């Protein structure tokens, strides 16, 4: 273990930078939608990370895998996450997990989701905490699915309030996320009574995520756009 130097103690405001004690949190998934690849790059040429720790937790928060990577080079490094998800249980019909990236020196991290046809780059999930709610715009229409990802970064179970804003209606859904776990919220399913089946018109809605938890939650929105010929296009906000 190297001793932290002065540069290591300087904290970055960039949420995509993981560093000692300030990990980045990602949602990773494999079956049946897409594959996930982690991309890491050192922030400073003068302070290269000696080790980067990846901790994977299953949707219920149980430790799944822990890997320590040596990446003391300046070039970006890419790691396919799928092999680390082999033993992961299915939850909500998906094989998915919470990935926590920590490093002994600042390192920029992204995840790349890719299907056979397309890929997208995802920065770490943004955090929501007591007094800091998060909002996401979403589009509801035929052929689109909106999935909310909520990661609990703490060792305590967290209660999350998910409020939909559609016109003048503001229904709320409360869910519980296990410690270190993940929960997915299908907006079209949870709030189905507020949408008409096979809605053809494109509707602009918003979702606000709030919590009373002192420890931050990590959240992101995943939109699946089903195109012609059963092809899917994924778009994310995080």
């Amino acid at each position, binding site marked *: 273990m190297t001793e932290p130097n002065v540069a290591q103690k300087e904290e970055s405001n960039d949420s995509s930078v993981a560093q000692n004690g300030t990990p980045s949190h990602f949602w990773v998934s494999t079956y049946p939608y897409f594959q996930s690849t982690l991309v890491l790059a*050192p922030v400073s*040429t003068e302070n290269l990370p000696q080790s980067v720790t990846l901790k994977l937790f299953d949707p219920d928060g149980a430790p799944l895998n822990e890997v320590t990577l040596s990446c003391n080079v300046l*070039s970006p490094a890419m790691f396919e996450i799928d092999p680390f998800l082999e033993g992961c249980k299915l939850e909500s019909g998906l094989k998915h997990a919470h990935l926590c990236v920590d490093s002994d020196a600042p390192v*920029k991290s992204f995840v790349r989701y890719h299907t056979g046809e397309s890929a997208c*780059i995802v920065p770490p999930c943004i955090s929501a905490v007591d007094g800091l*709610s998060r*909002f996401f*715009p979403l589009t509801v229409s035929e052929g689109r699915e909106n999935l909310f990802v909520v990661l609990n970064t703490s060792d305590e179970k967290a209660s999350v309030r998910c409020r939909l*804003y559609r016109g003048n209606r503001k229904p709320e859904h409360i869910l519980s996320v296990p410690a270190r776990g993940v929960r997915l919220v299908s907006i079209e399913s949870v709030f189905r009574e507020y949408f008409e089946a096979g809605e053809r018109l494109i509707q602009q809605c918003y979702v606000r995520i709030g919590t009373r938890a002192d420890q931050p939650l990590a959240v992101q929105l995943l939109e699946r756009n089903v195109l012609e010929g059963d092809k899917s296009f994924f778009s994310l906000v995080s």
Partner: protein
Amino acid sequence: MQSITWATFCVANSLARTIVHFFPSSGTVTAPYPAVCKFTLFSQGECAKTQSLEGLRLSQPDGVRLEDVFPFLRDGVSGMMGLHITLSTIQPRIDLSPSDCVVEIASRSHSVRFHPKQLEGGKEAVTVDGPLIGFDDQFHKSSLVVVNGAESVFEASLAWPQEEGGEASEVKAARSERLSPWTVEEFPLQKEIEESPTDPFEQSWGNTRAASLSLGEEMPAGSACFMMYRDATTKLPVSVVAV
């Protein structure tokens, strides 16, 4: 702070349009105090168009098509434009720093949504956090979008980090571009990624090239940089990340 400002780029053409979503919030204050959103649009050296949108309420998410704020955009504008978005309230002692903003570039087939760069008031320069990471493979073509929302010229100097004998050393200049005041430019990075000293990565689905680049200089206040990843086939933007 009683106001909060973001910088972003936007488009308005036959293929794509821009929607700005905002969430005026003061955290624990839940009273629906009124808020105002000011838009300042600039491109090609001109910064003459400012519009304000009233009727917003604290803790109430809302959004607007940019062409509804600036009707001349309905005719389409070639290239990218720069945009400053400022949320403010006249209520004293209201802190708007928990507010949020999301920009959506919507095309017929899909949308790409991203967070614009929040500007810090009172600072004369903006530091770019960390490296810019570009990819070039069957999925993505990468480019750097530079928004110069200042009255001064900005010289964007890109460099590759270099290693000598296993030790990090000085950076090597890759490219330099000069941006006039109030302009937005997109710089494809295909050549820089191809010429970077990194070997291609072998993935289960094929090879990919990734490169880490640094932006040498501090940017003038009011400016922002974004990494844009376009679909390699359709050339449509699929991911945008503020840096």
